[in-house]
């Protein structure tokens, strides 16, 4: 009875996948669809806000700014102010943070062979928050704050993995446990920083910024952070086949000619770097690194050559959508970290119910 039921479910899945492949084969390639979707989402995001701008005006404005077509001069000035100065930093921040969190989450999951880890669960975000808050309290330069965020983020991963190793094996559960311990440690260190921070200036800044807020970076800062973040996301993207081999096990990856130690170190360092830098742009934004890879895996399959770039693009779109809700749900803006958590929990439960068959190892 149950056997025939599971066979039926299996057949249904095979049929659905065949249908999906037919659609995929007939339509344009998935990279193009996702890329076009991202551009569309960015245009929509630029048009949303208190000052009304029609969606069609956005491409017109950009075309006019490179000399194609024309927009009335006074309208052009108004658009330039709203689009370039106010909304573009925010949209670019959402794209950078969303893609960095999603692709580093997918990379951590592959390299630790564990579908339950993410930058948040491994303690990276807590570590980076502690590092950045420490930098703010010490009053060091902006660049040094970024460096501290990365160093402490890496410290949190190393500590979490070390705790997991302490228990002898590297099963799914012990690594999650190690991440929880590491996250708790760096959260409490962060509390110490908050406790000693100046309650008039530094403390409100730290608290509001950590709740998650995409509007706090200017274009120059974003441009600087975009260099390592885009570079890291692209590097993780081209390592897809190596990540597939690593996800099967160290010995198997070695037997397929993969230099396991080098690749693992490069992936952990890169994923930690890009996810630590999201903290300095937008504070702690949870759940994206965990759920976006799962959603993309359900839609496009487990292969990392497809998963890594798709997760990056889908993560960017997800955060643009969450930012839209954060800006429009209430009269005042809601911190985006709260929105992603509220959205992430139901999505994660949905994904969990669809995929947990593969997780029940033995």
């Amino acid at each position, binding site marked *: 009875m149950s056997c025939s039921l599971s066979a039926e479910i299996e057949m249904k899945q095979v049929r659905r996948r065949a249908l999906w492949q037919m659609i995929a084969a007939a339509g344009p390639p998935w990279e193009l669809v996702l890329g076009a979707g991202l551009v569309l989402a960015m245009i929509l995001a630029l048009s949303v806000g208190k000052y009304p701008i029609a969606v069609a005006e956005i491409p017109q404005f950009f075309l006019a700014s490179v000399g194609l077509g024309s927009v009335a001069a006074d309208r052009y000035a108004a658009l330039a102010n709203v689009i370039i100065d106010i909304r573009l930093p925010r949209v670019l921040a959402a794209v950078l943070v969303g893609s960095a969190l999603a692709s580093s989450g997918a990379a951590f999951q592959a390299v630790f062979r564990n579908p339950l880890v993410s930058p948040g669960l491994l303690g990276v975000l807590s570590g980076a928050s502690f590092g950045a808050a420490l930098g703010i309290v010490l009053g060091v330069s902006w660049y040094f704050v970024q460096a501290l965020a990365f160093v402490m983020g890496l410290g949190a991963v190393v500590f979490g993995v070390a705790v997991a190793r302490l228990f002898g094996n590297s099963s799914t559960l012990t690594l999650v446990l190690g991440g929880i311990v590491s996250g708790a440690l760096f959260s409490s260190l962060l509390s110490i920083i908050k406790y000693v921070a100046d309650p008039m200036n530094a403390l409100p800044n730290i608290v509001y910024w950590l709740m998650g807020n995409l509007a706090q970076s200017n274009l120059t800062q974003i441009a600087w952070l975009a260099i390592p973040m885009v570079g890291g996301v692209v590097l993780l993207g081209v390592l897809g086949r190596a990540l597939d081999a690593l996800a099967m096990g160290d010995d198997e990856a070695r037997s*397929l000619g993969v230099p396991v130690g080098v690749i693992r170190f490069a992936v952990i360092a890169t994923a930690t770097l890009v996810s630590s830098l999201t903290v300095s742009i937008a504070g702690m934004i949870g759940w994206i690194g965990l759920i976006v890879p799962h959603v993309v895996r359900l839609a496009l399959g487990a292969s990392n050559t497809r998963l890594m770039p798709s997760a990056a693009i889908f993560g960017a779109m997800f955060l643009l959508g969450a930012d839209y809700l954060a800006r429009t749900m209430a009269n005042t803006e809601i911190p985006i970290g709260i929105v992603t958590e509220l959205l992430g929990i139901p999505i994660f439960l949905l994904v969990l119910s669809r995929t947990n068959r593969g997780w029940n190892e033995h």
Partner: protein
Amino acid sequence: MSTETLAAEAVHFSRGNRAVLAGASLSLAPKEIVCLLGRNGAGKTTLLRIMLSFLRPDHGTVRLDGRALSGVSRRVLAQRVAYVPQLHHPPFPYLVREVVGMGRLPSTGLFGQTSRSDRDAVEEVMASLDIAPLADRRYTQLSAGERQLVMIGRALAQGARLLVMDEPFTGLDYGHQMELMDRLRSLKDQGYGILMTTHQPDHAAMIATRVTTLVAGQIADDGPPENVIVPATIRRLYGVEMHSFGCAQSS
């Protein structure tokens, strides 16, 4: 040294102050099935891992076609010698075609693109093992016997002629064990060389062209099954008397 052989020569390996291997020598050539027998903890898997270059021996060398493995790159080795691991569940639901396709990694390199010839090679391997109908199924949802064939498929897709298998029969029911033996025999007839560890002397008797035993860190026996799988060897290996074992060989 003949060509196309993988040979461990007087390999020593210690863990802490316990000597796991103390001068073990074992070779594998095409067109043979070599079974490695030994007690639990005798070091069978350690010897395989050294021969696959996953571990470095303390003393002694492993040679591929007469060249020391330390001078052979992982990618080149992967195109000559393939590893078929014990059955396991990977945490992600790869399709069968994707798992077999990972076998092309040594040929294309980490950053290379798969070409049509790579995809054709994968389809060909799946057809030869009769797993083509499973191509779009998830590897994680297959039965143990099917997963074992997919792992062998990945090894063949590497283009390697020598296969090293860690307890390939563990976890399979009797019917699947017999089917797998037929597959391995036919691979041997096609010119593949297979080295495997097993806990079942009767499997070795049924399938091996050569049986070796690992005792006290050294290869104690190395010969045709009818010479090695005798009551005296079984007693030395496992400490049990096998009076009726002859009936398995009498045919």
